[in-house]
């Protein structure tokens, strides 16, 4: 400090308060009592019991606070920890299984390529069928539609409790919205569609559970990016004219959702989950061609 503030300046009262707070930590009462007693400090009869009682009380308060905090914490923390670890373990297993699926599919396609003669009709049919069933990664021009939930309103300044924002105010977009956009894109002539990089197959389901939109049982969250491959000009023209687009443009103005669509020249969509037929059986194995 270059220039110490004048303690007697009346304008410095509030500043002095802060300086006192930072510099003088000791209760002034100690110094005052010492000055009052003077040099010949005789111990009074209540000195020792007072110190004992005070320290007893302080120790008691400290341990009560400790016990109290740790009594209620463990159950909630234990449940939370065990849930978290179970979710982590399940995610780990799911990741491993997903990697295994990818590996096996790679082996399968290699085996198929070796078994089928290239450029034969059968190989072409297979490729086309895989493309239509969403079993092969594809690339091409198309368009991207983005739906975004409105931003969470900030906490009210009037000391409101957290978490009292109604769910309806933040989760306006549901499975229905994603589904209607996807259906509109199919109608406009898409050849392949993916939602948040989850490829849609003929058996894909877009559903709603809790607060998450599920695509093929994989939860996704806002923003929802729906990519479609097709004739980019045709797609964007058809989509812009559709009732779905105008509905979300209205919602954008009223409920402040985010809604935008652009055409893109180069979109790559991953392969979708394997479709296992559980009930349908091939009728005639020899008649491969339709």
């Amino acid at each position, binding site marked *: 400090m270059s220039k110490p503030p004048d303690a007697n300046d009346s304008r410095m009262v509030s500043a002095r308060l802060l300086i006192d*707070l*930072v*510099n003088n*930590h*000791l*209760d002034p*009462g*100690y*110094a*005052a*009592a*010492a000055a009052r*007693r003077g040099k010949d400090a005789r111990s*009074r009869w*209540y*000195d*020792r019991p*007072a*110190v*004992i*009682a*005070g*320290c*007893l*009380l*302080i*120790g*008691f*308060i*400290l*341990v*009560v*606070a400790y*016990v*109290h905090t740790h009594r209620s914490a463990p159950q909630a923390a234990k449940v939370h920890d065990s849930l978290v670890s179970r979710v982590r373990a399940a995610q780990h297993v799911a990741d491993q299984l997903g990697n295994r699926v990818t590996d096996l599919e790679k082996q399968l396609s290699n085996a198929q390529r070796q078994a089928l003669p290239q450029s034969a009709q059968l190989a072409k049919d297979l490729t086309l069928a895989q493309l239509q069933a969403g079993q092969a990664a594809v690339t091409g021009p198309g368009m991207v539609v983005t739906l975004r939930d409105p931003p969470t309103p900030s906490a009210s300044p*009037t*000391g409101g409790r957290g978490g009292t924002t109604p769910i309806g105010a933040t989760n306006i977009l549901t499975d229905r919205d994603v589904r209607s956009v996807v259906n509109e894109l199919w109608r406009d002539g898409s050849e392949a569609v993916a939602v948040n990089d989850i490829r849609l197959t003929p058996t894909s389901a877009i559903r709603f559970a809790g607060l998450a939109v599920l695509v093929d049982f994989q939860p996704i969250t806002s923003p929802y990016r729906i990519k479609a491959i097709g004739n980019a000009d045709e797609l964007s023209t058809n989509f812009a004219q559709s009732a779905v687009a105008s509905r979300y443009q209205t919602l954008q103005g009223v409920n402040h959702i985010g809604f935008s669509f652009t055409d893109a020249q180069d979109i790559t969509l991953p392969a979708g989950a394997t479709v296992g037929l559980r009930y349908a059986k091939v009728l005639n194995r020899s008649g491969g061609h339709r």
Partner: protein
Amino acid sequence: MIAGLALVAGIVLGLILRPTVPTWLEPYLPIAVVAALDAVFGGLRARLDGIFDAKVFVVSFISNVTVAALIVFLGDKLGVGSQLSTAVVVVLGIRIFGNAAAIRRHLFRA
């Protein structure tokens, strides 16, 4: 010496009795803990400065806890309880830090 023994006795007493804290007292517990720590460090520093006074120690501790609890209680009634308890913790925390630094200077001369 005797103060340390009493502190340990209080801790043991609390561990043995394990009293349940009534719900209405719960918000004041952290404030009481910080005020208690402030009293301990203040008392220790006064002792090292050679100006310790038992009466000042006990009275300042009890009045600190009472005033802090009163401020928080008033804040709860006005709807700014959490902000005021933050203020109390900040003020007492600065004092604890300062006193701990003074004790450190006394003990280690550093």
